[in-house]
């Protein structure tokens, strides 16, 4: 009985903490501006759309990986899938949720674009170091 209670409470709080954590990652990255170059590559001009997420992730996978970014990107990927699930279930019953999930999915795309920006500049730095050597 006690274990069942702890399980239910922990799962509910886990979901809450996970959503807040992902939103804090997004909030920190949303203050950074995208370079014109990345804007061109991703097609994101001012606001990002959730529809572009998979495409930006594919671009991200083309760049050399940075170990320190990996977990953040995985967390946002999981959050994006959670939003897709909400969008196709609860949001159909609650129309106001639809707009919220769509805006959140757009923020996930922007986070991925910022990660892409970092990976591109990281690759450039590595190339410059190799050229110097």
């Amino acid at each position, binding site marked *: 009985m006690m274990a069942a209670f702890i*399980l239910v*409470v*922990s799962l509910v709080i886990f979901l809450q*903490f996970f959503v*807040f*954590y992902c939103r804090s990652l997004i*909030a*920190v990255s949303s203050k950074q501006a995208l370079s014109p170059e990345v804007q061109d590559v991703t097609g994101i001009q001012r606001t990002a759309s959730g529809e572009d997420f998979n495409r930006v992730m594919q671009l991200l996978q083309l760049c050399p990986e940075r170990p*320190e970014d990996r977990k953040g990107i995985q967390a946002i990927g999981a959050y994006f899938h959670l939003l897709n699930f909400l969008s196709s279930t609860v949001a159909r019953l609650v129309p*106001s949720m639809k707009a919220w999930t769509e805006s959140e999915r757009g923020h996930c795309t922007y986070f991925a674009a910022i990660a892409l920006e970092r990976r591109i500049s990281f690759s450039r730095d590595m190339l410059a170091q190799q050229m110097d050597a």
Partner: protein
Amino acid sequence: MVVCALRRHSFRRYLFLNLYMGSSFLVSVGRYQVLSHYGIGSREYAYFYFYSDALLTIGLYFALLNLYSLVFDEMKVEGYLRLGSILLLGGTAWFSYAVVQQSSSRITSNFAYELSQNLYFVGLVLTYALWGTILKLRETRARLIQLVLGLGVYFSAFAANYALQNLYPNITALHYVAPLLGCILPAAWAYTFLRVSEEQRLAPARLAAVSR
């Protein structure tokens, strides 16, 4: 994570978080030694694993108190926090003593899961209370907020996993989940130290809000 904190000159400010991570690393080395010496099915390894886990969780309570003291650092309540930490240490010591006294023949049963589940759940409740305090006090330090949220994800995932193992001890797949969950905290904290500076700010109320 300790290396990241050192690189960002944050080792002393988050001393207990770093001490916890350091001791967690040492315990992992110790576990490997015991595992390679006695084998995974041995009683020695089971004892070492669960009691070191319980001690590490208590260590994590002190990391949590470190976060509490940072949230309350302008309110001059260090005395209360010190009293709280003494009570916490006394309470956990008493609890651990009671556990050890009656547990010698029960380590192979569900008891070990029950103990870990309870310890993680207490940690979860304390973290949730801290998150409530952050929202109430409108704390804006992004690094502190992310450290607390990372800890909340870790505690809740472990408490749920141990509760599940306690409810369904025959599902062996659950034994492999704990090592995966163990990566959450070092990864989240290392990311925070590397990516979020001490000066960055964000509004926690915005994280909790769902637009209507």
